[in-house]
């Protein structure tokens, strides 16, 4: 039987249909892990202080440059560099909240938006000044190209680590939230800052610690952002939109929802790209809108707002 070559271009992978779709979905789930890492810090900060941080994507890029500097200047392994960067970013987040963002919080939602929007511009331009517009990459010594055969599907070691880190980060954040005194204080402050004050909680300090924790997650996200692909000072905002979408379709304030949201966008993007490479980005946004149409409050909204 002669090969029907005319049809091959229309259908994706007609030679092995089922397996390729499985592969596509697996890659999408792994990509979702990266988006969940982008989004977890955003979700945390929004959940506790109702602050929408428009500079979140730029803070990820800033952390990526910090890791890059540690790798190139000190010759550290990127994973070790990320560990070193975590306390630095925690301190930076703590100071940012104490010195700047706490002053913007109040009944009016506009000041935090304006200030973080401005912060986004400041970070981008400072990075541009310091590192030029050249795109950079963190080299992880060959692990980027390593892959594992899991059943019928080949998966990259880095994407696998990314998803595993996202799950671990969310497990750890949930433990912090639901098993510790600090976590109780986070939730109480989120519910009612005035009454939290009557319990001896100082909301401004709680917010500073929350932003510090969010910056630790940002550092993990930065490690995988920087080793996976090139980045430059203007990369942040395009990452921010996926993070926002993941947070919103997951349900505001729910960390597991954020992971689910990240995975939905990741799968939609890889499936869209498999059908037609031009549809990758669009498919993610369409999936976002479709979930919002079906579940306007997201998949796992918290019981109380």
């Amino acid at each position: 039987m002669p090969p029907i070559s005319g049809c091959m271009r229309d259908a994706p992978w007609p030679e092995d249909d089922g397996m390729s779709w499985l592969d596509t979905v697996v890659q999408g789930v792994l990509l979702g892990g990266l988006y969940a890492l982008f989004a977890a810090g955003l979700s945390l900060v929004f959940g506790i202080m109702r602050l929408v941080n428009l500079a979140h994507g730029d803070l990820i890029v800033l952390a990526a440059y910090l890791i890059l500097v540690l790798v190139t200047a000190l010759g550290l392994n990127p994973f070790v560099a990320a560990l070193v960067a975590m306390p630095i970013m925690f301190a930076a987040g703590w100071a940012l909240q104490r010195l700047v963002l706490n002053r913007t919080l109040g009944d009016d939602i506009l000041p935090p938006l304006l200030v973080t929007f401005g912060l986004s511009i400041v970070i981008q331009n400072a990075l541009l000044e310091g590192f030029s517009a050249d795109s950079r990459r963190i080299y992880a010594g060959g692990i980027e190209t390593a892959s594992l055969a899991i059943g019928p599907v080949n998966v990259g070691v880095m994407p696998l680590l990314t998803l595993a880190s996202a799950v671990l980060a969310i497990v750890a954040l949930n433990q912090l939230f639901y098993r510790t005194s600090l976590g109780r204080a986070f939730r109480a402050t989120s519910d009612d800052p005035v009454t939290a004050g009557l319990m001896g909680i100082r909301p401004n300090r709680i917010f500073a610690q929350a932003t510090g924790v969010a910056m630790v997650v940002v550092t993990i996200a930065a490690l995988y952002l920087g080793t996976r692909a090139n980045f430059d000072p203007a990369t942040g905002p395009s990452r921010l939109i996926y993070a926002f979408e993941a947070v919103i379709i997951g349900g505001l304030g729910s960390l597991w929802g954020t992971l689910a949201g990240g995975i939905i966008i990741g799968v939609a993007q890889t499936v869209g790209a498999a059908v037609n490479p031009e549809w990758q980005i669009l498919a993610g946004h369409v999936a976002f809108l479709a979930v919002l149409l079906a579940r306007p409050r997201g998949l796992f909204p918290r019981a109380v707002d």
Partner: protein
Amino acid sequence: MTLLQTRDLKAFYGDFQALFGIDLALAAGETVAIIGANGAGKTTLLRSVSGIIANAPEAVTLEGRPIGALAAPEVVALGIAMVPEGRKLFASLSVEENLLIGRYGRDVAGPWTLDSVYGLFPVLKERRNVPATALSGGQQQMVAIGRALMSNPRVLLCDEISLGLAPVVIRDIYAAFPRIRESGAAIVIVEQDIGQALRVAERVYCMMEGRVTLSGRPGELSREAIHAAYFGVHA
């Protein structure tokens, strides 16, 4: 010995003056009730003492130490805990977590622990893992009182704990007060329910329009005098 004192305490909401110089004293271990109609300034008074509203430093003193200008978390740390009006439980926290957070700012040894609060209100132990706001109004009030007790306060401020509750439930809650008093805490009870206030308190202050209009021991105050101080009319 005077534990807590206010001297010429004035409070404002913007241009609106809510308190016009309140002088009040509370001895260690004493139970005092503050009664008055809506808008008399009772809640404002408690909010001033607890640090939600900032005042002149000398307007409120604890054992002579000026605390009027301190913020709420600093006031709690000194041993003044508040049961706020409307209970204000944390909706994201379970019953037990609401109790635990009561000692966040003042974790000191004393008579009140999770166990002794559950001993005071046994129904809470059965429902310890339920979201606090899923309880009935009376049980929520028990959580709010227990939460304040968890800091082992020297002064317990109770704002309108009978508000919106059935009389039988109010009786149950007030039945806990002798044991709270035995633990050594001085208690300030703000009430609109005059009968309840007179039964539980050793001394009563009556407020009207931001001023103290009457004070004394319940047995020494005539109904007419309370009426006049409460409503501002001479019956």
